[in-house]
C-alpha cells in the first residue's frame, strides 16, 4: 500500500531515512539542506531515535560514525562548505568501514558561493575528496520520489558494504515540491554481524568483514591507522597496507554491476544524453517534446561506482551529450569509457538547463 503526499525533496529525504530505520541524526544547519535536519529534529525523538545538533560539520560526521559503531543507522545532511569540513572523517569512515549516510544538497561553489542556488560541483569531491585511496557509493535523485527511495536504499548499501554512502542531491531537487507515493514500508538489508570465531577485520569472500557492534562483547579496536585483521595498528607494514586499501576499493568496485541503477531510453539512438540529478528533468522534457527525433537517454541514479557498462548499450551512439551543473565532472568520467565524442554541457550559475538549451545542443556541433 502507498499513500499520496505533496512534499518537498528535503522532506522526502528525511522521510526516506525514517522509513529505512534511521535512528541517529547528527547535523549542522546549512542552506539548502537544512530542512532535512529540521524534519529529523521533529520526527526522530518521537520514534525513539536521537537528533543532535553538533558544533560544526566535522563534529556531525564524527557523531554519526560513533553512533554507527553502536549499531545505529546514522545520517547527516549538509551542503558544499559543510561537505568540505566532513572530508577527513569521511576518510575515517572509509578506512574503518563504518556504515553511514551523508546527504549533500549541492549548491554553487567554490567556497560560500551560492547558498540558495543549485549545482553539481561536488561530484568528484564525494568520490575523491578525502586523502588517500578508497571507494564510496553515491546516489543522485532527480525527483522528490527518488529523494525518498534513494535515501532509504542508501542505508541498505551502507550496511551491506560497510561504507559511507552519499545522497548527492542538488538544490533544485531538495527544494522542489511534487507528488510522491509513499510506501508503507521499505526493504531493509542490515549489516552482517561479526562471527565469534572470526577476527573483527577479517573479510569474507565478498571482501566485507562482519560488523563487531560496540556493546556486544567483541572488544573491537577501531582505528584510522592502517590495521591488521585484529584491528591493531600496523602502519609500517607495506604489504598489509597495500592489501587493506586494495580491499577497501575492490569491495565497492567489484560490486559495480550489483549496485548499478540507471534507465536506458532509445538505445538505438545516435545522439545520447547522459544525466543524473536535476538535469534529468529538462532532458525528459526534450524527449517528450521531440518524440520524432529518437534521442537516446542514459539516466543514472548510482553515479559512484560509475555504471560504465550502461554506455556500451547505446550501440549506434555517435555522440554523448552530458548536461551537468558543473564544468564537466562526469563528462570526463564518460570520456574514459567511450570511443565517440563526449560533449560536456556544463552549466554554471545555479539554474537548471532549459529544454530549449538542450534541444539546441542536439543541433549544434
Amino acid at each position, binding site marked *: 500500500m502507498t499513500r499520496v503526499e505533496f512534499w518537498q525533496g528535503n522532506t522526502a529525504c528525511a522521510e526516506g531515512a525514517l522509513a529505512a530505520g534511521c535512528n541517529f541524526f*547528527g547535523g549542522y544547519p546549512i542552506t539548502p539542506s537544512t530542512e532535512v535536519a529540521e524534519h529529523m529534529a521533529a520526527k526522530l525523538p518521537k520514534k525513539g531515535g536521537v537528533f543532535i545538533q*553538533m558544533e560544526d560539520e*566535522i563534529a556531525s560526521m*564524527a*557523531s554519526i560514525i*560513533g553512533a554507527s559503531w553502536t549499531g545505529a543507522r546514522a545520517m547527516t545532511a549538509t551542503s558544499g562548505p559543510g561537505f568540505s569540513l566532513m572530508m577527513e572523517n569521511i576518510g575515517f569512515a572509509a578506512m574503518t568501514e563504518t556504515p553511514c549516510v551523508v546527504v549533500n544538497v549541492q549548491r554553487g561553489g567554490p567556497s560560500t558561493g551560492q547558498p540558495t542556488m543549485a549545482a553539481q560541483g561536488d561530484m568528484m569531491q564525494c568520490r575523491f575528496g578525502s586523502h588517500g585511496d578508497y571507494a564510496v557509493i553515491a546516489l543522485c535523485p532527480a525527483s522528490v520520489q527518488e529523494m525518498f527511495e534513494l535515501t532509504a536504499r542508501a542505508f541498505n548499501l551502507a550496511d551491506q558494504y560497510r561504507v559511507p554512502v552519499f545522497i548527492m542531491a542538488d538544490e533544485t531537487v531538495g527544494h522542489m515540491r511534487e507528488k510522491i507515493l509513499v510506501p508503507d514500508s521499505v526493504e531493509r538489508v542490515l549489516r552482517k554481524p561479526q562471527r565469534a570465531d572470526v577476527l573483527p577485520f577479517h573479510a569474507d569472500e565478498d571482501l566485507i568483514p562482519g560488523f563487531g557492534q560496540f556493546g556486544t562483547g567483541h572488544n573491537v579496536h577501531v582505528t*584510522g591507522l592502517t590495521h591488521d585483521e585484529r584491528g591493531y*595498528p600496523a602502519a609500517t607494514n607495506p604489504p598489509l597496507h597495500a592489501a587493506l586499501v586494495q580491499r577497501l576499493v575492490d569491495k565497492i568496485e567489484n560490486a559495480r554491476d550489483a549496485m548499478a541503477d540507471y534507465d536506458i531510453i532509445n538505445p538505438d539512438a545516435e545522439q545520447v544524453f547522459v544525466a543524473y540529478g536535476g538535469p534529468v528533468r529538462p532532458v525528459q522534457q526534450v524527449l517528450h517534446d521531440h518524440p520524432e527525433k529518437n534521442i537516446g537517454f542514459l539516466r543514472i541514479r548510482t553515479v559512484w561506482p560509475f555504471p560504465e557498462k550502461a554506455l556500451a548499450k547505446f550501440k549506434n551512439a555517435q555522440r554523448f551529450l552530458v548536461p551537468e551543473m558543473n564544468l564537466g565532472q562526469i563528462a570526463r568520467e564518460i570520456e574514459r569509457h567511450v570511443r565517440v565524442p563526449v560533449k560536456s554541457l556544463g552549466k554554471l550559475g545555479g539554474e537548471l538547463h532549459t529544454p530549449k538549451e538542450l534541444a539546441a545542443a542536439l543541433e549544434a556541433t
Partner: protein
Amino acid sequence: MSYDEWFRQDRLPHIYCAGCGNGTIINCTLAAVDQMGWKKEETVFVSGIGCSSRAPGYILTDSLHTTHGRALPFATGVKMANPDLHVVVFTGDGDLAAIGGNHFIHACRRNIDLTVICMNNQIYGMTGGQGSPTTPKGCLSSTTPFGCAETPFDLCELATAAGANYVSRWTSYHVKELEKAVKVGLETPGFSFIEALVQCPTAFGRRNKFRQVADHVDYLKVHSLLKAKRDRMLDAGEAIPEDLFVVGELTKRSRPALGVKL
C-alpha cells in the same frame, strides 16, 4: 594491584618511551574503572590522535581511535546512540585544546555524560616536541626555539566555565589522588574532566633542563598547589606565585546532563 585483564596482552610492547608518564595515568584510570565494577562489554574507550590517544588500543574493550581533535564528537555519538555504554575518553593537550578546542567547550556545555582524561605533557610528543597550547611561557620546544611567547591555556578553568559537572587536576606524581579523582569522575553524571600533568622526557624534559625523569616528576610535585591551600592564601590576601598550578577537585556540581543512562 594489577589490572591485567583490562589490557590487550597481545599488543605489548607498547609505544611509550622510557620514563613516559602516560602509563601511570592509564593505570590510575583502569584502577578506577575496575573499582566501578563495570563489565568490559559495556565500557568504551575513545581517543583522538597523539601519544595519549594510543591508550585505548592497549585496553581490552571496544575502543575507537579517531581523528586528531575529534574524540569528543565521536564519543558524543557513541554515548547518545547508546547511553547504556560507559564512555571514557583519553586525550592530550594538543588533541583537546588546540585542534579539538571547539569540541571541548561544546562537550562541556552539553554536559554530556563522558569522563575525559587529558594527559597534559605540555608538548606535541608524537610529532617530536612542538609547542602546544599548554606549553608554559619561556619553555623550549622545536617550534619555540627562543622560548614559548604565548600564554598557556588553563584547561580546568576552561572546562568549568564551559559547564562541566566535574573538574579536577592532578599530576603523574599524585597517583592515589588521581585514581580517586577519576573514580569520582566516572561516578558523576555529566561531563567529567580530569587533567593529569605528565612528564615527557623525550620531547619536553630534555629540552627544558630535566636531566632525569625523576627531576621532572619532582618539578610537578613541588609546583603543585593544593586547592585548599590556594583558597587559604587567597583569603589571606597572599599572592599566588605564577609558576605554581592548582591541583585538587576544582569543580563538582550537578547541573542537568545529556546522555545519562535512565
